[in-house]
C-alpha cells in the first residue's frame, strides 16, 4: 500500500517537475540553513570547550561584569555584562599577582584591532597586552622565536599569530621584523603555532590573528586605560581553588570599593557560561532559520492544495472504484511527505557542502553531528505531515459524485 502510494506520488511529482523543484527549494533552504547554523554553533562550542579544558582545572578566569545572576539559587547568564566596558584594571592584575595562592597571572588587555607590517595594514587583528606566561597558561606553542620574557616588559616586543605573519610579512618566520601598532614599532619576538581556531572566549579573535605585546607596552599605548577583557589565574598546586577564588574576589572587590562588578569563574562555571551564551545565540539564529522552513512548509501546503483541486476528477474516479477516504488521505500525505523528505535530503546534502566550504575557506569549523541529522530528518518529516494534512483531508473528504463531475 505505502509503496504503491510512493510510486503514485513520485509519478505525480515528476509530472509537474518544475513545480516540484520550486516547492522543494523552500524546504531545502530551510533545512540547510538550520543544519548549518546548528552545526556552526556546535563546532564553536566544541572548540571553546576544548580550549577551556586545555586550561586545566587549576586555572581561574576573572572577567569584568557580573556574568552570572544568582537569584533564588538558579544561576543564569547576565547578557548585559558583555555590553559594559571592562571594570577590571591593570591595578587589579597587579594586586592579584601578589596573592599567596596565586602561581601566575596573565591578563588580556585589548589594545586595538589595527596593525601594519611590510605588506601593509590589517584591520582585523586582535592586538592585546599580556604577560609572557599567557602562552604557558594556554598551552600555546611558539613555532619560531620565543615569547617575550618578564625582563623584556619594558621593551617593544610582540608575539604574533601565524596568519598575521603570513599577511603582514608574507613569510613563515618574520622574527626580527617590525610591526607598527598605534604609531609604535614592535619587534616580532615569536610566532605562534597555527591553532585550530582556538578562541579567547571572544568571538572572532583567535590566536592565528592575534598580536600579543607586553602589558607595559599596552598600558603606555592606551595611557593606562587598556580594556582588561579577562585575566587568567593559575593557582599553586597545593592551594585550594575555592579559597583562592574567594581571596581573589575579596581583593578585587577591595580595589573597587567593595563593589563586586566582576566574576571569578572556575573551569566548570566557565564551561557553563560559554554553553549558555552559545546556546542562546544558536537558538536565536536557528529560530530565524526556522522561519524559512515555515515558509517552505506553507509552500508545500499551497502546492498540495492546488494539486488536490486539479485532481478532483482523479479523486472522484479513485473513490468510485473503491478507495476509502483513508486511502485517499494517505495518497496525498505520502505526496506531501515525498516533497518535504526529498527537500530535507537535498538540504542535508547542501549543508554538508556548505560545511566543507566553511572548513576550507574560513576559520569556522562547523560540526554536523548525528543529533543534528536526526533533528533535520525529524523536522522535514514533521513539516511534511503538518503542512500536507490539511490538503490531504480536503481530498479525502470530497464527495465522490461532485468530485467525478468536477474538472
Amino acid at each position, binding site marked *: 500500500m505505502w509503496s504503491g502510494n510512493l510510486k503514485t506520488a513520485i509519478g505525480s511529482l515528476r509530472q509537474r517537475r518544475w513545480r516540484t523543484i520550486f516547492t522543494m527549494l523552500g524546504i531545502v533552504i530551510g533545512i540547510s540553513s538550520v543544519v548549518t547554523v546548528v552545526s556552526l554553533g556546535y563546532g564553536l562550542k566544541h572548540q571553546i570547550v576544548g580550549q577551556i579544558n586545555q586550561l586545566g582545572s587549576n586555572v581561574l578566569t576573572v572577567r569584568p561584569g557580573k556574568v552570572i545572576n544568582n537569584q533564588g539559587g538558579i544561576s543564569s547568564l547576565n547578557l548585559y555584562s558583555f555590553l559594559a566596558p571592562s571594570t577590571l584594571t591593570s591595578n587589579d592584575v597587579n594586586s592579584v599577582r601578589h596573592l599567596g595562592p596565586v602561581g601566575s597571572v596573565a591578563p588580556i588587555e585589548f589594545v586595538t584591532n589595527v596593525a601594519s607590517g611590510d605588506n601593509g595594514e590589517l584591520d582585523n587583528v586582535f592586538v592585546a597586552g599580556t604577560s609572557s606566561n599567557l602562552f604557558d597558561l594556554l598551552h600555546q606553542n611558539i613555532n619560531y622565536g620565543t615569547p617575550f620574557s618578564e625582563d623584556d616588559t619594558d621593551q617593544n616586543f610582540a608575539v604574533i599569530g601565524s596568519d598575521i605573519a603570513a599577511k603582514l610579512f608574507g613569510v613563515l618566520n618574520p622574527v626580527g621584523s617590525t610591526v607598527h601598532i598605534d604609531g609604535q614599532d614592535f619587534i616580532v619576538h615569536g610566532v605562534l603555532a597555527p591553532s585550530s581556531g582556538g578562541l579567547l572566549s571572544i568571538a572572532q579573535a583567535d590566536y592565528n590573528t592575534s598580536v600579543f605585546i607586553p602589558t607595559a607596552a599596552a598600558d603606555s599605548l592606551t595611557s593606562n586605560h587598556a580594556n582588561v577583557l579577562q585575566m587568567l589565574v593559575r593557582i599553586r598546586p597545593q592551594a585550594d581553588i575555592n579559597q583562592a577564588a574567594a581571596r581573589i574576589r575579596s581583593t578585587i572587590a577591595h580595589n573597587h570599593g567593595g563593589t563586586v562588578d566582576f566574576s571569578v569563574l572556575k573551569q566548570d562555571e566557565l564551561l557553563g557560561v560559554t554553553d549558555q551564551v552559545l546556546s542562546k545565540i544558536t537558538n536565536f539564529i536557528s529560530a530565524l532559520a526556522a522561519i524559512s522552513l515555515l515558509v517552505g512548509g506553507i509552500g508545500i501546503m499551497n502546492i498540495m492544495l492546488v494539486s488536490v483541486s486539479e485532481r478532483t476528477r482523479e479523486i472522484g474516479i*479513485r473513490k*468510485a*472504484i*473503491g478507495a*476509502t477516504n483513508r486511502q485517499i488521505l494517505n495518497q496525498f500525505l505520502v505526496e506531501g511527505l515525498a516533497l518535504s523528505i526529498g527537500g530535507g535530503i537535498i538540504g542535508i546534502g547542501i549543508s554538508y557542502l556548505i560545511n566543507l566550504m566553511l572548513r576550507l575557506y574560513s576559520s569556522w569549523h562547523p560540526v554536523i553531528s548525528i543529533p543534528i541529522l536526526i533533528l533535520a530528518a525529524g523536522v522535514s518529516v514533521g513539516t511534511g505531515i503538518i503542512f500536507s494534512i490539511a490538503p490531504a483531508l480536503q481530498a479525502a473528504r470530497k464527495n*465522490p*459524485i461532485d468530485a467525478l463531475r468536477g474538472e
Partner: protein
Amino acid sequence: MALIELDEVSKLYGFGDATTLALDEVSLSVAKGEFVAVMGPSGSGKTTLMNIIGLLDRPSHGSYILGGKQVAHQPAAQQARLRRDQIGFVFQFYNLLPRLNVLDNVALPLTYKGMTPVRRAKRASDILELVGMRDREYFMPYQLSGGQAQRAAIARALINKPSIIIADEPTGNLDSRDSRVVMELLAEVHRQGNTILLVTHNPELTRYASRVLYMYDGTIVGDEQTAIGQMARHARRIFFRKPRTTDSDIAAGVSAMMRDMPGKALAPKAKRGRPPKAKKPARSRKAYRTKR
C-alpha cells in the same frame, strides 16, 4: 431474493425554495442476472438513481438493500469497500487515470484491496485478455481510441468480480462501430451471469436489455420486460417521436415564473423588439451535462 431492493427512495438537492426533487419515492427491485436499461430525458433522475445504487450518493429518504443488507446509511468506509467489491462502474468518458498505463488502471481496484503488485498485474492481464485488450497493456490512455478506452474501463469494472455493473451511457461518446463492440462486450458479461444497469438515450441499445425502465421527473413511469435482441416497445415509440412542448407545459412554466419573480415575468413585453434569444445559449453543453 432480489439483489437490489429500493424502497421509496427520494433524493433532494438544495434547500429552501431552491429544493429539487431528483428522485421521488422510487421503489425498484432488480434480480440477479438482469440487464436493466434505464431511459428517460435529461434531468429525469437516471444518473441520480445510478449514483444511489452505486453507493456514490446517499438517498435523502427511503431504504436500499443490497444483497440482503441495508446499505443506505452505512459509514463511508464501508460503502467504499462495497463499491470496490460489489460494484463496477463504466462511465461515458471512460474515466481512466491519465497518468497510469492500461494495466495499472485496470489493476487499480485491486490496489485498494491490498493485493501484491505481481498478483494484481496478472489478474489485470487476464481480464484485459477477456476484453481483447491484451496487446494494449502498456499503452497510456491517450494512446487508445474511444472504444479501446471503454473496453479498458469495462475490464477495470470487472476486475473485482462485482455483482453489479453500472454503465452510465457507456456509448455516449463512441461512434456506432465502437458502440457495437462495447455493447457486445457488456452483453457477453451479462451472459456470464452478471447484473447490469445501463443508462442510455439510445433506444437501439434496449435490444441488449432484458428489462427497460422509463424515468420522468424523478419517478419510474414505465417498467417493461423485453426479450433480448428485441427493441423495447415504448423505446421504439420514443425513438420515432421527437419530444414536443405542449400548451400545458408552457402554462406551467409561466405560472412558475410569476411565482418566483413576479416583477420580471412580464419583462419581455417591455422589450418587445428583441426576441429572448440570448437565453438559449446559456444552456450550454456543459451545463446540460452536469445536470444529468
